[in-house]
């Protein structure tokens, strides 16, 4: 670890995430009906604690992450497996595990480790060998072993996110395009089987998404309410703390997954676009970092982090605006919740690390 490296840290990136976290704090203050202690306080404290973690991770030699990429992957896989076992014994949908008094959701942590493992794999792979079957097989293992465990929990939203994340990275790394077409066709034909294999409540979610009026008091209602709240926010919104709370009463997760609805209602289209713009700038910065990096490990790592962030933002905003079924994905830095924030902040740490170590060519063979 060399803290001097931090002189090279991307200040614009840090600045933007601080703004987003402050917006999140304000929104949570509003969601808590003007009570700071309910969610907002914890949110902002968490953010600044995790900001220190970003700096720590950014200042560690990138070779360490490279060296332990597979090890970390297996560790988090074990964690996931233990949650699965404890969950089975406890007879419920368990997604949390308690480590040193902290509730940790291993499915969040494994995302970062999949990015690391894939980055290492493609960094070590000679490009002319990428077409071999086994070199497609191993990355798929990295993706699908944890995914199937998470799907069993059952946490469909996270499982789908991880598959998309993995496929983005594989595509980025140069896997032949026809393989993706093949995968697409296979998925299409196996759809009836997949439909059978998911839980009834998940089927209901998808059905109520396709036809919200079919379940006006359940999931569909939530969507209708979310759309009404957003739509009535119009261009400028109803003003801070001005959201008509009666809508949000129907959003059981207004402080987590549906926080963006509240922002849309109170700050209108201007607020919504501003936040989307900030997130897109973060993604752009990640792409610049990727391009600047002189080793494949860093390039893939940066794009992995960007894609992870992209998926969070897109899936969450698409969900609250009724473009996608309600899947339960938080909005990074803004939604209330510790593990999601920790995992996204760790990934930011890795991203800034890649930028600091852009010229470290020792990872090339």
């Amino acid at each position: 670890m060399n803290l001097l490296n931090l002189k090279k840290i991307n200040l614009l990136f840090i600045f933007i995430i601080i703004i987003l976290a402050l917006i999140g704090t304000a929104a949570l203050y509003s969601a808590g009906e003007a009570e700071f202690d309910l969610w907002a306080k914890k949110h902002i404290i968490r953010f600044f604690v995790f900001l220190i973690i970003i700096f720590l991770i950014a200042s560690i030699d990138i070779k360490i992450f490279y060296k332990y990429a597979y090890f970390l992957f297996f560790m988090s896989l074990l964690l996931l497996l233990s949650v699965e076992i404890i969950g089975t014994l406890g007879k419920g949908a368990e997604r949390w595990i308690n480590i040193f008094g902290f509730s940790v959701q291993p499915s969040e942590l494994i995302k970062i480790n999949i990015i690391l493992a894939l980055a290492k794999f493609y960094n070590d792979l000679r490009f002319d060998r990428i077409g071999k079957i086994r070199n497609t097989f191993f990355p798929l293992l990295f993706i699908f072993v944890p995914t199937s465990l998470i799907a069993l929990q059952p946490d469909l939203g996270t499982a789908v996110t991880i598959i998309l994340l993995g496929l983005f990275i594989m595509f980025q790394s140069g896997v032949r395009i026809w393989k993706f077409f093949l995968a697409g066709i296979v998925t299409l034909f196996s759809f009836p089987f997949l439909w059978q294999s998911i839980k009834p409540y998940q089927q209901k979610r998808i059905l109520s998404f396709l036809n919200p009026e079919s379940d006006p008091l359940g999931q569909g209602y939530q969507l209708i309410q979310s759309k009404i709240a957003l739509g009535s926010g119009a261009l400028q919104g109803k003003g801070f703390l001005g959201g008509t709370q009666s809508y949000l009463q129907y959003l059981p997760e207004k402080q987590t997954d549906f926080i963006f609805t509240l922002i849309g209602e109170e700050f209108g289209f201007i607020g919504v676009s501003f936040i989307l713009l900030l997130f897109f700038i973060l993604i752009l910065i990640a792409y610049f970092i990727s391009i600047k990096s002189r080793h494949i490990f860093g390039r893939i790592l940066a794009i992995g982090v960007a894609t992870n962030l992209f998926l969070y933002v897109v899936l969450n905003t698409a969900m609250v605006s009724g473009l996608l079924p309600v899947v339960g994905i938080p909005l990074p830095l803004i939604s209330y919740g510790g593990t999601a924030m920790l995992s996204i902040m760790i990934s930011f740490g890795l991203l800034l690390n890649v930028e600091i170590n852009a010229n470290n060519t020792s990872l090339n063979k």
Partner: protein
Amino acid sequence: MFNLHERKQSKVFNRRTFFLLSVKLGIFSVIGWRFFDLQILNSKKYKTLSKKNQINVAIIYPVRGEIRDRNNIVIASNKKVYDLYIIPEQTNNLENTLNNLNDYIEISFKQKRKIINLSEKVKKFESIKIIEDLNWKDLEVIETNKIHLDGLHLEEDFQRIYPGNNAFSHILGYISQPDKKEVNLPYISKMPKLDIGKTGLEKYLNEDLIGIAGKKEIEVNSYGRVIREISLDPSQKGKNLQITIDSRLQKFTFDELQSHKAGSIVVLDINSGEILSMVSTPSFNPNLIIKKPNVEYWKSLLGNPLSPLTFRSVQGLYSPGSTFKMIVALAALKHKLVNPKTTTFCNGKIEYGDRLYHCWKTKGHGKMNLENAIKESCDVYFYELSKKIGINKMATVAYELGLGQAYDIGLENEKKGIIPSKKWKKENLNENWYAGETLNAAIGQGYSLSNPLQLAVMIARFASNGKKITPTLFKRNDEVIFGQIEYLSQFSNIIKDALFKAVNEQKGTAYKSKSNDYFFSGKTGTSQVKKITQAERESEEFRKKTIEWKNKDHALFVGYAPSKNPKYAISVIIEHGGSGASTAAPIVKRTFDYIMKLKI
């Protein structure tokens, strides 16, 4: 520096980077457009929708089912109560109204502040509860002075009420708010605020008593104000249930215990096994637990060293004392180890090992046969007998007569007690059995422990000539057919004759309590609490000294009536009551008198 592969990789890599970035930008644009569509193009539509009224669903809580006794007398019911509410927006000035109210009903300053603070947090049109369960006087005052009390209104609610107060509390238990775990019980899901049974039958019967929630659809405007009721799906009251207790007898036996600090009485119907009465003192008043604030009352219950929350009839364990002798006698008869006619001489004590074993009658009983030994409760006779039988055979018979087991009558924490045996001692204390311990066991001392319900079952099984009666709190519809203890039907007349004479013949231990109108039979028991030392036993001082209450013996009696064709079995235990003959037997007599009068 770059070789061919790497150059090619770099090219592919860059190409795909830009491709994916464009894809992401595209998707972001779609999302952006979606919000543009919602918030700009269609905002008018949603604004109109947002002003439209919404439909809210409110849960209607069901009324809890009643519990009745065997004669359909209500013992757990619901009282209609009136709660006083205030709606801030309907008052000219909230504080003034509260001050006016204070002229009629006292409202503390603290309470007033609380209401005013609360009114600032909730919406102006929401009701705030001021007083729960108004009494009739206050109700009247409020009705007559309505003009000065703007914004106040009354709402109906139901409160659980137990008319029997302390007499039924252990059997019935009480209701209260569910805890974190209970909230997830399937039958109260959706009704998180419902009071549920926490102990006793209220807990055991929750599922039947709770009923089914109804719902009400209400139209509210965008601020949450109720506009109108759209539909009403009423709740369904829980089932009314009947139990086997006779509340008259329950109250009578409860009152019988009041002259003692602690004890229990159990009365069984021998034909059906139905429990007619089961009381335990000290007791508690469930009505005081339900009524808030109850902190002080809880403190007094938990601070009471006699633990009023314990249901002694099933949770209290006592040495059966001399009531155990009928088991020993039966074991001897079963294994043909005794001839009822042969006699043993009792001179007040026997020596066994290097120890002296005393009879309660210091002078000794003289010549004793089996019948007289039961009738006069001669310890020495049973010491001698037990040496021939051995502990294990006694244990088997004790178990078959109903001791050492729980009957799962629906009350939690029913204690099994202990029937000592060689195996039991090895498993539980990891020690070998000493021969002398068999002698102690023969008079129901030592390790033996039973609860009062078990003792009632034991005497009922003797009384019925060996029917394997099990107790219940729920009506048994048809004539139940119990299993039969074969060897008991063969010898029961020998033991029952002795039990008859114990009450109805001179020298019988309970002769003083005999009835002149009918016959009952039974056996006294005195269960030793404090070991008496040899020195104490021999000193005349000790005999005369009044013993401190907590060191006094427990007084027991088990019996049945009428002696011919027995119908009722009873077990009485008075903690530290002295001797069974002097304390427990008179209670049994009075209880049987009462039962005969009632003709249950």
